[in-house]
């Protein structure tokens, strides 16, 4: 049996492909791209929320937000490790992010203008991520699937802490409710765009579905998210910025209006006013941390010399 036969058999049997297995170049390339984007998104995603750590309204909210941002760093690390099993180095991935040759989710190119945005991100952005990541737990590449299982376990805390921020605001003053509504108005559409272009326009979907990298299509995931989220919004007493949003009795689904894909493409291509700033902040953090890495390396060297002496 050739490597290719074994690969096809593994995929057909819903088994996992593991790092040392033969795999088509395209499969490996697609995975590196997808896992790297996913990892970069976790890392860049620390910035919009980190922006509010010093201004969280209470000490409890502050330590919760710090724990959440720390989780995002952890998720980035799990994913970089998974990418490395495909033969790409951590340094290379970082280099590609810093030079703009690999992308991260455009959702992080929107600003966090108020405290309510932190609630909206947890509820909507992490909520959308959970829908996506639950589906990815059954992706065909073993290390990626295992990283997803680990991440999904932690992600539910993220969505719930966001919803709890909004619940507190919904029981607050008129001004607090207005702040919450404003955040929902700004984050709703970008959250729906996180699932990517419609199936008919998605260039990657077909091959990725065949290889079982992707198990559920963009539109199916988006619908799942809308169906679970709209009723949660009613409980908060918020409205969604979509006059066409209606419940379809026949299908049992919430139907959304047209997504503004021009905005999506503009933000993906880096027109988002924050995209340059996000990368600059990441590069700056890496450069300013150089002395820490050098000190750790020097200390490791010193300890090893002392041991051999």
């Amino acid at each position, binding site marked *: 049996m050739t490597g290719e036969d074994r690969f096809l058999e593994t995929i057909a049997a819903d088994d996992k492909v593991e790092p*040392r297995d033969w795999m088509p170049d395209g499969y490996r390339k697609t995975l590196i791209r997808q896992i790297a*984007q996913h990892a970069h*998104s976790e890392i860049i995603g620390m910035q919009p929320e980190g922006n509010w750590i010093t201004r969280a309204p209470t000490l409890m909210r502050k330590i919760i937000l710090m724990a959440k941002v720390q989780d995002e760093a952890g998720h980035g*690390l799990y994913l970089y490790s998974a990418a*490395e099993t495909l*033969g790409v180095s951590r340094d290379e991935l970082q280099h590609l992010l810093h030079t*703009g040759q690999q992308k991260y989710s455009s*959702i992080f190119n929107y600003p966090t203008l108020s405290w309510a945005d932190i609630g909206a991100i947890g509820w909507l952005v992490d909520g959308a991520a959970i829908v996506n990541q639950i589906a990815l737990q059954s992706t065909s590449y073993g290390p990626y699937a295992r990283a997803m299982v680990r991440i999904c376990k932690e992600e539910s805390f993220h969505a719930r802490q966001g919803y709890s921020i909004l619940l507190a605001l919904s029981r607050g003053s008129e001004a607090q409710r207005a702040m919450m509504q404003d955040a929902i108005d700004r984050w709703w559409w970008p959250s729906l765009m996180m699932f990517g272009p419609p199936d008919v326009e998605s260039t990657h979907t077909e091959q990725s579905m065949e290889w079982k990298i992707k198990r559920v299509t963009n539109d199916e995931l988006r619908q799942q998210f809308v169906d679970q989220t709209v009723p949660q919004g009613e409980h908060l007493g918020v409205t969604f910025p979509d006059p066409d949003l209606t419940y379809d009795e026949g299908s049992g689904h919430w139907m959304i209006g047209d997504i503004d894909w021009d905005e999506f493409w503009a933000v993906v291509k880096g027109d988002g006013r924050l995209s340059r700033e996000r990368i600059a902040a990441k590069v700056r953090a890496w450069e300013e941390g150089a002395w820490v890495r050098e000190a750790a390396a020097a200390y490791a060297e010193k300890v090893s010399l002392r041991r051999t002496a």
Partner: protein
Amino acid sequence: MTYEVPEIPGEQTEDPTGHHEEHGWPLWEVFVRPKRGLNHSHAGSLHAPDAEAAVQNARDAYTRRAEGISVWVVPSAAIHASDDSEAMFEPFEDRPYRHPTFYDIPDEVGQM
């Protein structure tokens, strides 16, 4: 946190493996013992300058929620793996007599 960022001009689409030399810290495999009485099992990997730092990083990366009470770190380069092609493990398929279900025991004999 999206997994579908469409390809755009300027994006690197070549295979990025092996292009950039690794100057970073060595890779370590992390094993976590979830609780007393259970084996350490593989949790993932991380980079660190030495074993001591690797243990610290493993604690932060893999046990933020009491997932373990003990960790091992092993340099990834020190792991020798089997050749996972069929030849190595296939012979076991031909030896069903090594399994208890190979033997028919009369029902009257009862549980064995």
